[in-house]
């Protein structure tokens, strides 16, 4: 059984509340960090841990922290990205709903490390009941001296504000999130400048995913090196996977990134296999914007090696025969599911959620949805040529969704080919 760092205590009765959380050893990292460590030491510790951003891109968190500009007299901000809106991903919700103090604790430490006195949690609008949970946790932390002025007598001031989004997928992209936080239309900004230089209100800003910030707690408690020992290679620590689709036990699992995909799907400790003895057909291993993999490429890489649940192994083979760890939204399809149908429903999502700033995505996602619907209804003849056209518009991922556009083009191809091959055509 793998080690658990984040969800170890998630099932303790009343862990949602400060008293229980504290009794179970909560907020130790705040005491340790604020009282015994300098800001640079914390950043160093996070770098040592090898923690990679858990939101999808997998960028090393310590490095991101290291980039933050520190001009004299300009406030800096830490923003927690809780706009979890990738289809198939619900790990952050679980964490915030059941063990909110873990996030608050991580936020306090990170705010201290980055020098952010006003820290924000940007939460997606659809998580309507969670801001109350977070706000209650913040109030409790404040009442106990862990937030507000002069935290634990160390002279460090910090406030955390919960900001609700209006429910837009694109606001999970950090610059769009910042625009939205500023009260504007949530369109991604053009980078550079990166948020670490000019973010919210033109001030240096770090945007981190919920799980990333929660992982700061064990890193400080146990030390970066200890954290880095868990996992394998550059996939250090544990990762929350939200598993859904055709599996016996959907839910959020904490894994230590050493287990194989096969074990994850079939062992009773995790997904518990596929219901009714059905066969595995395909899987989207990291949330809807990563490439879909057919069963044969999911369990083994193209080279015939076992595929593991970690950043490197999942992306083995690149976009041609591999996928990505992404945000950890693990969607399993059994033999009865239609990949075209599934791709259609994702395309519909992207069409609906495209911010409409760049033309390839704005126009392309709508087209794809229509083509896929027709394909699904058995009327489309031209799909392959059209998807080549779409995937040609490979764009720099400056604004966000063109990436998705690119995947869409590929999906189309893949799903058609997959569907054909599975039907023996």
């Amino acid at each position, binding site marked *: 059984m793998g080690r658990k760092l984040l969800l170890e205590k998630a099932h303790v009765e009343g862990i949602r509340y400060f008293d229980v959380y504290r009794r179970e050893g909560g907020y130790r990292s705040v005491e340790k960090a604020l009282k015994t460590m300098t800001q640079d030491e914390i950043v160093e510790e996070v770098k040592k841990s090898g923690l990679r951003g858990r939101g999808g891109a997998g960028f090393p968190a310590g490095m991101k922290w290291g980039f933050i500009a520190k001009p004299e007299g300009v406030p800096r901000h830490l923003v927690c990205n809780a706009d979890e809106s990738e289809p198939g991903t619900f790990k952050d919700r679980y964490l915030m709903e059941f063990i909110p103090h873990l996030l608050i604790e991580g936020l306090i430490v990170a705010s201290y490390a980055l020098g952010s006195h006003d820290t924000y949690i940007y939460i997606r609008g659809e998580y309507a009941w969670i801001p109350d949970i977070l706000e209650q946790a913040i109030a409790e932390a404040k009442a106990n001296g862990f937030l507000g002025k002069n935290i634990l007598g160390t002279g460090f001031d910090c406030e955390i504000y919960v900001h609700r989004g209006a429910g*837009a997928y*694109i606001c999970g992209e950090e610059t769009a999130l910042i625009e939205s936080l500023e009260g504007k*239309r949530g369109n991604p900004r*053009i980078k550079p400048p990166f948020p670490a230089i000019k973010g919210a209100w033109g001030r240096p800003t770090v945007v981190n995913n919920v799980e990333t910030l929660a992982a700061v707690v064990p890193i400080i408690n146990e030390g970066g090196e200890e954290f880095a020992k868990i996992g394998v290679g550059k996939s250090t620590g544990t990762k929350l996977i939200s598993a859904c689709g055709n599996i016996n036990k959907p839910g959020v699992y904490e894994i230590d990134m050493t287990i194989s995909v096969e074990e994850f799907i079939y062992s009773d400790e995790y997904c518990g296999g596929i219901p009714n003895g059905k066969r595995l057909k395909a899987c989207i291993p990291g949330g809807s914007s990563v490439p879909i993999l057919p069963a044969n490429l999911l369990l083994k890489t193209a080279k015939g090696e076992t595929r593991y649940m970690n950043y490197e192994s999942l992306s083995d083979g690149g976009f041609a025969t591999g996928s990505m760890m992404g945000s950890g939204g693990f969607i399993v399809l059994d033999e009865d599911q239609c990949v075209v149908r599934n791709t259609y429903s994702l395309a519909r999502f992207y*069409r*609906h*959620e*495209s*911010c*409409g*700033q*760049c*033309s*390839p995505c*704005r*126009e*392309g*996602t*709508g*087209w794809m949805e*229509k083509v896929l619907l027709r394909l699904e209804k058995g009327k489309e003849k*031209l799909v392959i*040529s*059209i998807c080549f*056209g*779409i995937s*040609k*518009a*490979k*764009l*720099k*991922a*400056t*604004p966000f969704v*063109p990436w998705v556009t690119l995947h869409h083009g590929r999906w189309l191809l893949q799903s058609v080919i997959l569907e054909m091959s599975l039907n023996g055509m």
Partner: protein
Amino acid sequence: MSDTPLFKVTIDNISIEVPAGTTILNAARIIGGDVAPPAMCYYSKLEGSGGKCRTCLVEVSKGSEKDPRPMPKLVASCRTTVMDGMEVKNITSPKVVDARASIVEFLLLNHPLDCPICDQAGECHLQDLSYEHGKDGTRYEFQRRTFKKQDLGKYIQLHMTRCILCYRCVYTADQISNKRSHGVLDRGDHSEIATFIEKSLDNNFIGNVIDVCPVGALTDKTFRFKNRVWFLKPMDAHRDCPACSGKVTLWNRGDEVYRVTARKDQWGEVEEWICNDCRFENKKSTDWIIEGPRLIDRHSVISQGHYAGKIGLTMPTETFSAVHHGRQPKLLMDIHSVSEVNQTDIDLSSINGPAHSNNFNSNKD
């Protein structure tokens, strides 16, 4: 700034030195000609513009002297700054040519192609773009998105159906008028330029949005359907104006002034913003001091023969379906907001025989 270092950049095998911080697009514009990528959303006079349409994509085959790695994807040249020793491919890159054709296709997906009844025809950047960089025919066979025409006050009309969402008019209103009362509503392919609850745009400089609009989405109501631009003669003229520079281009037929626009440079960008008074209210030739004819060197139909050799004066010999690679598109764009004849939800190719009025009877169940 005198101490800005100069960077050497090579675009389509032509080298040039530009100050650090220059974008690839602007460097290419200094070289000029075909090397300059087309730009549908970038507007040098508008801060923050660009990065939307993606027609200006180029391939960076060498990042810089220090880091010669190529950039993995095509980049938007209007928002990417040059590095010392950078090598860029625009028309010499098949990838770029190909991707650009795809972008044209995307921009035209929901465009009505109602050029025959559009006032912008003849000076439309989208027309130019599709002639120069697009492919013939379309592979799109679905209903296109349509909007109702909207009056934005007494001078401007909005045909949202034609808009390519370049955001230029939004930036213009932000930057040269004191209060913006229109913007982009909604998102994705249903996003639209709008005033939310039909308001009129009445800032004294708002008329400039007509000039910045690359397509016929924002048109001059005082000129609507009055004439085709290629029948008009552009003349530079000025007047004493208390609000703006008063330097304009008049579009005449005989002695009659049909419309007034700002003067545009070789990239089709306004040189100096003009006020509504000059643009809409002074349409007598006696209002103006004529300077001389304005040379128009870029725009399609106005400058005759611009497409000679490519489209030229030859009549197309292919039939409609040949252009469409043997397919019969299901519908043509409904160019009115509501078409009585060709209803967009009726699949013409699935009707047996010639269409009959019964096929369009909307009352039947």
